[in-house]
């Protein structure tokens, strides 16, 4: 009887894990398409290291951050590899939450030889190094840029310049916007979160001439630059954006754009590969690329810098197995593997290795955007992100531990302004109070 077999099946499932004497490592990562690919390639890793089992925890960005931070900060040790952003690496390294990788590379010369640390872009490596010790390796790095739909531009009789201004972008959006046909002028992030809408809004504020704090850690959200930037953002998105923008983060906008529903989209450069991938994008032949738009204030800080990296939390007991996976998943060999399994070089994790950008295959496949990506990453200067000097580093974030909480709070407030729940003035006042409170409580303001 088949019914009586069911518990048996469960039993074998339960015992299956105990049958092999292997190390099992748990990896926490974001549900971005690149990481999902990494998860799918686990069998390839097992060909090389059959004695290491890999368990995955794949979550949306906001949830992932919360889970990892809580876990690492409390030393719970649920994860052997954590996916951490460039914002966290220096802070966590200073807190003593991460294992330095430099000694591990010295301990495993054969891995170090094939891994070629010097191949990783210097700017990216620098951002992950604290006191001469490397604390994480980059899985992919990104800046931000403008994507547009050539068909829709042609229909409206428009051409996109290589270096557009925000004013031009708004004009284009108004000409393309046609909601009755399901076409929206521009798609931008509205989903609350310091790594979602605030990453984008902060680059806009930068290029409109604003900043989060002045040199004395006084909050600057009550300045005209913030008001102009936010008014421009809310108006553009309300008039020429898709409905329900407050629920749209990177993933949602990627879907809308790849379905051909957006005229333009300003977001992470990593999307260029996805939009060029026939298996997920309907606009492979009509997607165009340009630099991130510049506002009236300064070109500085108009495009962000971000990398997702793999790091080993201090609390792990399986350092060696973790190190093997992390060096495999960020190796030149892995990049070749993705190109082979995906059938296109355009889909490889970008922004990390010089060898990727000198590879003729990559140039051929990603030629349309690879130069913009590389120059954007090189141009993004985390140490001088704004028009006026600031006491922090980071383009689309402020490099203090409290920024996660602050950015998330202000992100919620900005989403409220976008959906019309609060006025722009009110939102900025709330944000200003919030930013000042954080700087005061953390002891930055004297």
């Amino acid at each position, binding site marked *: 009887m088949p019914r009586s077999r069911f518990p048996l099946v*469960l039993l074998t*499932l*339960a015992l299956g894990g105990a049958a092999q004497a292997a190390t099992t490592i*748990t990896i*926490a990562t974001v*549900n971005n398409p690149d990481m999902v690919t990494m998860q799918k390639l686990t069998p390839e890793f097992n060909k090389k290291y059959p004695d290491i089992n890999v*368990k*995955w*925890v*794949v*979550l*949306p960005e906001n*949830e992932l951050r919360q*889970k990892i931070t*809580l*876990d690492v900060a*409390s*030393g*719970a040790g*649920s*994860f052997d590899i954590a996916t951490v952003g460039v914002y966290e690496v220096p802070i966590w390294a200073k807190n003593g939450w991460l294992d330095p990788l430099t000694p591990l590379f010295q301990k495993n010369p054969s891995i170090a030889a094939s891994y070629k640390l010097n191949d990783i872009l210097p700017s990216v490596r620098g951002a992950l190094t604290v006191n001469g010790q490397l604390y994480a390796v980059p899985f992919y790095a990104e800046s931000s840029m403008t994507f547009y739909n050539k068909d829709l531009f042609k229909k409206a009789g428009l051409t996109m310049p290589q270096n557009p201004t925000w004013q031009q972008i708004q004009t284009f959006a108004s000409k393309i916007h046609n909601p009755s046909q*399901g076409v929206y002028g521009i798609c931008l992030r509205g989903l609350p979160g310091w790594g979602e809408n605030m990453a984008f809004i902060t680059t806009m504020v930068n290029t409109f001439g604003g900043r989060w704090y002045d040199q004395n850690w006084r909050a600057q959200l009550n300045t005209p630059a913030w008001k102009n930037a936010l008014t421009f953002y809310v108006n553009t998105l309300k008039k020429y954006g898709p409905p329900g923008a407050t*629920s749209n*983060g990177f*993933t*949602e906008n990627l*879907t*809308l754009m*790849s*379905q051909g529903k957006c005229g333009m989209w300003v977001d992470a450069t990593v999307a260029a590969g996805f939009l060029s991938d026939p298996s*997920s994008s309907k606009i492979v032949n009509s997607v165009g690329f340009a630099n991130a738009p510049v506002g009236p204030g300064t070109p500085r800080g108009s495009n962000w810098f971000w990398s997702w990296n793999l790091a080993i939390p201090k609390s792990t007991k399986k350092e060696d197995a973790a190190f093997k996976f992390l060096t495999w998943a960020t190796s030149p060999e892995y990049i070749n593997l993705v190109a082979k399994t995906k059938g296109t070089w355009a889909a490889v994790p970008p922004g990390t290795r010089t060898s990727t950008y000198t590879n003729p295959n990559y140039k051929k496949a990603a030629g349309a955007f690879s130069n913009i990506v590389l120059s954007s990453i090189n141009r993004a200067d985390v140490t001088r992100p704004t028009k006026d000097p600031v006491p922090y580093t980071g383009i689309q974030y402020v490099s203090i531990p409290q920024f996660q909480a602050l950015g998330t709070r202000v992100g919620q407030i900005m989403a409220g302004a976008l959906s019309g729940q609060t006025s722009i003035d009110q939102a900025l006042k709330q944000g200003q109070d919030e930013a000042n409170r954080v700087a005061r409580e953390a002891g930055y303001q004297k």
Partner: protein
Amino acid sequence: MTTVPASRTVSDRHRWRNILLTLLTYLIALAFLFPLVWMILNAFKTEAQAFATPPVFFFTPILDNFQRALPTYLPALRNSLIAALGSTLLAFILGLPAAFALAVYPTRRAQGVLTWMLSTKFMPAVGVIVPLFLLFRNLGLLDTLPGLILMYTTMNLPLVVWMMHSYMSEIPFAIYEAAKVDGASVAQEFFGIALPLSMPGIAATALLALIFAWNEVFFALNLTSADAAPLSVFIGEFKTSQGLFWAQLSAAATLTVLPVLVFGWIAQRQLVRGLSFGAVK
């Protein structure tokens, strides 16, 4: 038991009114069922069909989404089953004797005990989640099934005591009296009389406890990550509306909801009594 007023003058107007009321009943019921039906339909579509506007109502069903969801679904299913069954069992081991004592030897404090137990349900889980997280970390219970079973037992124990107390109070007192006269011990009363006579109640209560543990979200999300992650966490991983994966999401959700639905349909009458903690029979 249905109650139909006996004297019915079947006039035409009456009949029409009846037909209209029946139609209205069907309409409201269908409106409540529709989101689930839609979810199940989407599970059998391609991603493009699931995402299409205007929506696709007629299509060739495919099973790909289920196949794709299965590898991650099975471990989560295993965890959900173990956590639900384990916590229900533990809640019964602790709760049955207590319910028996409260029902058969009522003291003045019995009502107080019952009320206090119910009041623990008023403790918002989120109010104690932080110390729980830290306690679990220190005891090595984070992301383990025993940890989950521990919390689900806390959640279901008051329910078991209340429900079983209500069932055991219905056993005629004379039966216990007679046994006492013959010198039966407490254990004999419990195993010989109370347990066999309240079997239907045990089944209904167990079912309810299983469903509550199965659907629990908060503890699961915050106290597990991989090894012990039950189905609620598995669905949570689909949270961001990755429009490209609606069909897969629907398949995963269908797999998650279906076992509970079938149970609920079978035992719907007992559920009502359980849901009201035995106050409505």
